[in-house]
């Protein structure tokens, strides 16, 4: 009876360990790059946070005239930042609290600038990339009146 039990345990151990060893030896896949869905998600969340603070309502004559600067891509990957900027522009315009000013000579209440950063962590088990979308609302004198950021792990 004893050898039979030992045999059961050995076979069980082999059956249990084999998939774990196989998983341990597998090369981790590199994280996928940023896509349009990520840009939409980050822009939506950041626009909501900006609207929630109510700073855009504190102008003399609403809606707040705002200039959106080109979003800077500080990651090591190619990414069309206009997707993020466009989604942000739609969300803010639709709120009725912002009027995006395209003419650079026209005076504005606020300037909105954005930046995308990334950090990369690589271990034997996993490769993680975290993208950080930063947004800053400044007055024309350059003082930041609101700063927000949203992280995305890939």
């Amino acid at each position, binding site marked *: 009876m004893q050898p039979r039990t030992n045999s059961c345990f050995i076979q*069980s*151990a082999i059956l*249990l360990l084999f998939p774990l060893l196989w998983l341990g030896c597998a090369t981790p896949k590199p994280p996928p790059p940023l896509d349009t869905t990520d840009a939409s998600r980050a822009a939506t969340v950041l626009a*909501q946070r900006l*609207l*929630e*603070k109510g700073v855009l309502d504190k102008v003399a004559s609403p809606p707040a005239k705002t200039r959106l600067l080109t979003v800077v891509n500080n990651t090591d990957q190619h990414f069309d930042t206009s997707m993020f900027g466009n989604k942000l522009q*739609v969300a803010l315009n*639709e709120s009725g*609290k912002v009027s995006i000013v395209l003419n650079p000579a026209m005076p504005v209440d606020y300037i909105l600038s954005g930046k995308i950063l990334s950090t990369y962590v690589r271990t034997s088990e996993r490769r993680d990339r975290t993208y950080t979308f930063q947004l800053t609302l400044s007055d024309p004198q350059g003082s930041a009146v609101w700063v927000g950021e949203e992280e995305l792990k890939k």
Partner: protein
Amino acid sequence: MRSPITTGSLLCAALGLVLSSAACRTVNTAEPATPAATRQMVNDKRIITDSSLDFKARIVGINQAAVGSGDLLKVQAELLNNSRGRRHFSYKFEWFDQNAMLIQAPAPVWIPRDIEGRETINISAVAPNPQAKDFRLKLIEKTNP
């Protein structure tokens, strides 16, 4: 000739797998017994089509508040993971005007979230404009973490 892998050994292996997978992390929490804040709870109506997801990300309650200059609705849902392991899901809020028409722009987006075992989290959204009077929260299981 007997097969070297018997039914008994397969059962032992299955038991081992079950026991090893059951060793999951769960979250302990603490909060004031008498909260200082008062929540304006929403009397909600739920449609559950995925009972498995409802177990992993159960809506405990929904509350709302006016934000911005008081003209924007903010909705917050409290979710509880009743399982013992980390789960992944996505959610989105849709907004409706006073005529119950869906506000299309900006288009609602699915937002992925993780929830640890037995953890309670809050998800929230701010209405896209002051015309938004009602909302619908949608949850879906996310297969790829």
